[in-house]
């Protein structure tokens, strides 16, 4: 049994890479996620349904399509990819950063959804009250809205993190499956199932994958509960 959990260096690297990719996907998409949720929840403009549809697209499109689109846009010769590479020296294609981008795009609808729901649940009369007490719009957002939607933000972050750990299709299409660079947990499992004698490794990583996902969900539940209690004012 002990031997079963002796991970090979490759497997350890896959786990660490997955965690790193998921962390950055979650962190970098957070500000944009809050902003998008805010616009969708509160904005009144004609293009809103369209924006809503675009945000949700990765949820319904085949992940391969998303990955391929990312490759077209952010590949070395893609519209944004060429710009980023030439002007800023940032290369996403076939790098772990690209994997993080793919995961962020795939997790974005989930994050926006969770945050948007919590924004819509905020009692706007509290924001008016803050305004009459002298708080300008930015302060109202920071001191009233943001604390009140914290449970939604946490939920959105965890969902994105969990989604990123499991992201496979868009990642492998966009950044391929390079050991140590872009071979995340799902890619590693996929690789192991493709080679003879890889069953034990695949099973190990599968078990690990389940454990990490469970831990993330439990932490999320704990945090949401704590914040919820604080908001209930008990």
């Amino acid at each position, binding site marked *: 049994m002990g031997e079963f959990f002796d991970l090979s260096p490759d497997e350890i690297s896959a786990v660490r890479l997955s965690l790193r990719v998921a962390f950055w996907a979650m962190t970098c998409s957070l500000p944009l996620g809050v902003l998008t949720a805010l616009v969708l929840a509160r904005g009144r403009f004609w293009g809103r349904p369209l924006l809503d549809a675009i945000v949700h697209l990765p949820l319904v499109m085949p992940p391969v399509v998303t990955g391929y689109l990312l490759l077209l846009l952010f590949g070395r010769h893609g519209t944004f990819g060429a710009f980023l590479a030439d002007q800023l020296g940032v290369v996403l294609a076939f790098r772990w950063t690209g994997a993080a981008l793919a995961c962020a795009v795939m997790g974005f609808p989930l994050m926006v959804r969770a945050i948007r729901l919590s924004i819509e649940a905020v009692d706007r009369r509290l924001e*008016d*009250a803050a305004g009459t*007490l*002298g708080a300008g719009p930015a302060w109202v957002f920071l001191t009233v809205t943001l604390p009140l939607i914290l449970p939604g933000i946490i939920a959105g972050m965890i969902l994105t993190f969990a989604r990123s750990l499991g992201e496979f299709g868009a990642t492998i299409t966009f950044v391929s499956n390079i050991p140590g660079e872009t071979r995340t947990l799902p890619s590693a499992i996929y690789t192991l199932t493709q080679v003879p004698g890889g069953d034990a490794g695949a099973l190990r990583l599968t078990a690990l994958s389940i454990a990490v996902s469970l831990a993330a969900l439990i932490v999320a539940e704990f945090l949401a509960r704590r914040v919820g209690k604080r908001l209930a004012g008990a």
Partner: protein
Amino acid sequence: MLEVEIQHRLGRFALDVGFASGAGLTALFGRSGAGKTSVVNIIAGLIRPERGRVVVDGNVLLDTARGIFVPMHRRRIGYIFQEGRLFPHLTVRQNLLYGRWFSRRGGRQATIGEVGALLGIEHLLDRRPGALSGGEKQRVAIGRALLANPRLLLMDEPLAALDTPRKDEILPYIEKLRDEAGIPIVYVSHAIAEVTRLATTMVLMSEGKVDAVGPVTELMGRLDLYPRTGRFEAGAVIETRVAGHDSVYGLTHLSCAAGEIRVPRLDLPEGAAVRVRIRARDVIVATTLPTGLSALNALPGHVAEIGGDLGPVRDLRIAIAGGSVLARVTYRSLSELDLTPGRAVFVIIKSVAVDRHSLGIRGGQRDEAAETLDT
């Protein structure tokens, strides 16, 4: 000093309001849907009217003609909402200090200790709003608005969501605020008892328009405003002072220009100002000073005005020295007693009809008065 001029359209509802008021408490009184809340929302800056002008103490906060619209967070107008609207994620202390983060320094500002003592909320500071009663929440909301250093306080039916004991708990604090804080208050209400008890100036509204503006005693003594103030609760308001106490019978003598009114004992010092609301249906009219009657109060006056046809009843305005009393009598009595304008009469008021819900205490020995009424 507050000046308000508003023309605004909300769907089918047209608001066309203008009034000016001074220090003390200005009550916007009218039925639900009269547009009272819209008026205070416009004063606060929550609504931008089509046309209008709002000036507080010489500061122009809104003037559509000149394109001035000061955003609400720069108006320094405290707003106490019907539902309190305390921030659930902050403690009572943090709620109270919220406005302090944004209020400009300079001038003397109330401290949390003073406001806590004024409103009796010192013991609640470390609690969260969820753990407070309705009355406590509303007191904290008042304190929160005060600590933001406002130049005007708006109160939108602050007692409407509370039961009678909670109302009685808060009313003395609002009286204290009006007399001690030196901040003008605009108070929205559709409860005549609150208005007659609290208001210095009364603005009577209906269907988006102002029907009358003036001192409470003057407006409440007018027959033509009956339909607006509510027929059942209709009654005049007279200003009195405590003249003395009758310890044998447990009565308090209140003196006004027309004479004395005896009411069940009030634990107020001599000289304290008391406002008494006498409902028209609690008044008896006599052509001679009656004897053998249990009612203790008889004030001389004369019939000044007779109201319109109300089926079997008529309302009378009887002028007494220094004011008016309204009386509701049957048409039959009116005819049989030959009550015509100019006729000298006595106004008979039952002492027990004057209860604590129809009394307002002003100035002077505030604290004892408030506590007495509170018990």
